[in-house]
């Protein structure tokens, strides 16, 4: 275990950035979001949750797949370059780290998504324990320990120091890179911090949600529940929940006409949108109720059924605070019978 | 300092804001003018003199001192030419060349006469000061 004074973090960031691209929470126009570190950037490690999750670093909201051009009547194709250099994502919360694992199950299983795989291969995750969890957090429900994030490097902010512990080979390598800035530290302060975090988490209002109904009920039974009809109505069909969600992985592929050619890109899609999975004949989900149900059934039933019980919600609580209609997955879990 | 008549005409047009090309030579300004008979160059002629650049004649004319600044010509001109403004501009040019006011604000109260309309005084002040 190492540590570094909080006041020297900018040196640390500069050292990392000198070698590799560094992404971390940056405050811009009052909002914290992950962004590329620059000397001018306003790093914000105090905000517990960035608006968008760090999902962007591995699975960007929009990415070009290839470009094609008409060159004298012939089609010229120029595929996008895959990530080939290491990069660091700093300050991820335990829930966000777990979310990457959720994405891994989707993108790294056959057929492997080469764009995602390349980023995962080169990405180094530096996580940070949650000093002050909030009322919207419910990671505990999914067995995530906010005090012990499981990334390449785990860090804790205790008092005026950042404690640093490499957990993987990648983490070790990164540690080596910045070794000269770190000093050795004992674990006592961190252990105390962990206990404190865990104690707070125990007290959070949503920490004890009961998911057994999703484990014990038949898929069709949940699917046909009349409760969906009762729940969906306030939903405005915007994509806020899906776009702030660290695990939502649906995307759409579209073409952009640049005038001189076509860029084929993929971008996040939202199951809340009316044209989600639209096909030539129309859409199989014609009502908002069906789309609403799709999202939560996917998070809480379809995905766990296909992934050894791993839920595709990590309890980060972003949707809880951002839904314009104050709908959220907690309300759904409770309504379906998961009141703690 | 010495300007050609053409330049002077431009200055007069600029000071007065009059577009002499708008004149359709109907003569209503002269027809409306109470000082017509006193004038050597008549209001409608002012417009064409300026248009043609005959400024020296205007500078020397007595008309500029005969104009009452009653603005009847301005009011009644069907083409919105405002001949009185031209006359005033020529007058200003003369006064500026001579340098000095014929009348200062202090002298005005003495001239006040119950019988005289205020407008006349205001006009006089316009006429005889820079």
């Amino acid at each position, binding site marked *: 275990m190492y540590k570094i004074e909080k006041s020297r973090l900018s040196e640390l960031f500069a050292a990392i950035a000198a070698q590799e691209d560094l992404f971390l929470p940056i405050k811009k126009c009052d909002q914290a979001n992950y962004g590329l570190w620059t000397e001018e950037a306003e790093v914000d490690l105090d905000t517990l949750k960035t*608006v968008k999750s760090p999902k962007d670093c591995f699975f960007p909201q929009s990415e070009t797949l290839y470009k094609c051009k008409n060159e004298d009547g012939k089609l010229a194709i120029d595929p996008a370059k895959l990530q080939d250099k290491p990069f660091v994502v700093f300050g991820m919360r335990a829930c966000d780290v777990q979310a990457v694992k959720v994405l891994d199950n989707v993108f790294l299983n056959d057929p492997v998504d080469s764009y995602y795989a390349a980023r995962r291969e080169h990405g180094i995750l530096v996580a940070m324990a949650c000093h002050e*969890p909030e009322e919207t957090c419910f990671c505990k429900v999914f067995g995530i320990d906010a005090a012990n994030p499981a990334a390449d490097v785990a860090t804790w902010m205790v008092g005026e120091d950042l404690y640093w512990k490499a957990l993987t080979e990648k983490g070790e390598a990164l540690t080596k890179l910045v070794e000269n800035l770190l000093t050795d530290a004992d674990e006592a302060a961190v252990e105390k911090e962990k206990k404190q975090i865990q104690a707070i988490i125990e007290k959070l209002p949503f920490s004890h949600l009961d998911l057994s109904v999703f484990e014990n009920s038949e898929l069709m039974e949940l699917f046909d529940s009349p409760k969906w009809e009762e729940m969906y109505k306030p939903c405005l069909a915007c994509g806020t929940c899906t776009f702030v969600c660290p695990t939502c992985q649906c995307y759409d592929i579209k073409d952009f006409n640049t005038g001189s050619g076509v860029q084929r890109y993929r971008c996040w899609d939202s199951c809340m*949108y009316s044209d989600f999975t639209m096909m030539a004949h129309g859409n199989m989900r014609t009502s908002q109720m069906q789309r609403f149900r799709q999202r939560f059934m996917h998070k809480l039933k379809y995905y766990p059924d296909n992934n050894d019980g791993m839920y595709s919600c990590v309890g980060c609580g972003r949707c809880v605070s951002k839904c314009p209609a104050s709908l959220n997955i907690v309300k759904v879990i409770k309504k379906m019978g998961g009141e703690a | 300092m010495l300007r050609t008549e053409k330049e002077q005409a431009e200055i007069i047009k600029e000071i007065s804001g009059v577009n002499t090309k708008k004149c359709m030579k109907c003569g209503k300004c002269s027809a409306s003018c109470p000082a017509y008979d006193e004038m050597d160059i008549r209001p409608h002629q002012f417009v064409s003199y300026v248009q043609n650049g005959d400024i020296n004649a205007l500078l020397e004319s007595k008309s500029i001192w005969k104009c009452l600044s009653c603005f009847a010509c301005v009011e009644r001109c069907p083409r919105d030419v405002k001949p009185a403004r031209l006359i005033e501009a020529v007058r200003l040019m003369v006064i500026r060349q001579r340098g000095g006011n014929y009348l200062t604000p202090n002298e005005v109260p003495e001239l006040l006469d119950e019988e005289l309309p205020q407008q006349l005084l205001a006009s006089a002040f316009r006429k005889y000061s820079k």
Partner: protein
Amino acid sequence: MQELVKRAKELLADGTVVRVLGWKQGDLGYNPEPAYFNSEEELKDFVYDGFCGANLSKYMIEACKMEGNTLVFLKPCDTYSFNQLIKEHRVKREKAYIIGVGCKGTLDIDKVKNAGIKGIESISQDGDTLKLKTIYGEKEFPFNDALLERCTVCKGKTHQVYDELIGAAEGEEAGPVGNRFEMVEKLEAMSPKERFEFWQGELSKCIRCNACRNACPACSCLKCVFDSNQFDTAQKANVDTFEEQMFHIIRAFHVAGRCTDCGECSRVCPQGIPLHLLNRKFIKDINEFYGEYQAGEDTDSRAPLTNYTFEDVEPGIVVERGQK
């Protein structure tokens, strides 16, 4: 609030309405959700407090398609939206029983959180103070400091359309409020470069979640142009170049003259983009160029963009104004 519930029960009982559209108690102190109540029993969860910011007029578009009449609770500023929707034939007046509810201002929980108050378990109000019970202890916060921006420039406490009023008086005036164009004026006074940087910063945060559009009562299109292939304008691409701005310019343009300035767009934006500043710019321009106009004040006047006078200002005014 009890009076609202009582009246709702009466109206359900006597068959005037078959459902009630209001707000339902949330699972945190500050997140009530818009909800339909179909019975007396369900009304036990009804709530009306400062966090009931949602403008229910938008929901009335769907409610009007349902069988039977709907009782809807509308705050004063929500009624402008409702009127505007009547004008555009998007709701049916006769399908709604409107109770105009009094409004003391609606609140923005993020203002409280940004002040460093975390782990909120419950909230109560004591006079001008919000009392917050948090995991990290008891906290207090001045009510007025938590007001949403739109409420600090409240356009009035008068309901434009209603069947009855509860907790509000006819012709009630708003208290002293700020100038809602203050920020617009400030931006106008900046240099083009400063303005560009301001908007570039704000709009580049946009994640194209469409919350602004979907919450907006004026954006009531069955199919948004940004969802259709009419203009080849992809709705989902999120690129920090012009496309984001195109979306927001066109959205503001489409609601120009129809926007009642209800402020929902800014309230719901997950990235806190001050979208109302776009709408207000149009409102300000319309007022200056074509005479004062408040969308939603009536149901039959012609909107500024479907109207004209022979003497309207020329588009060159933009350049002329810039030179001053």
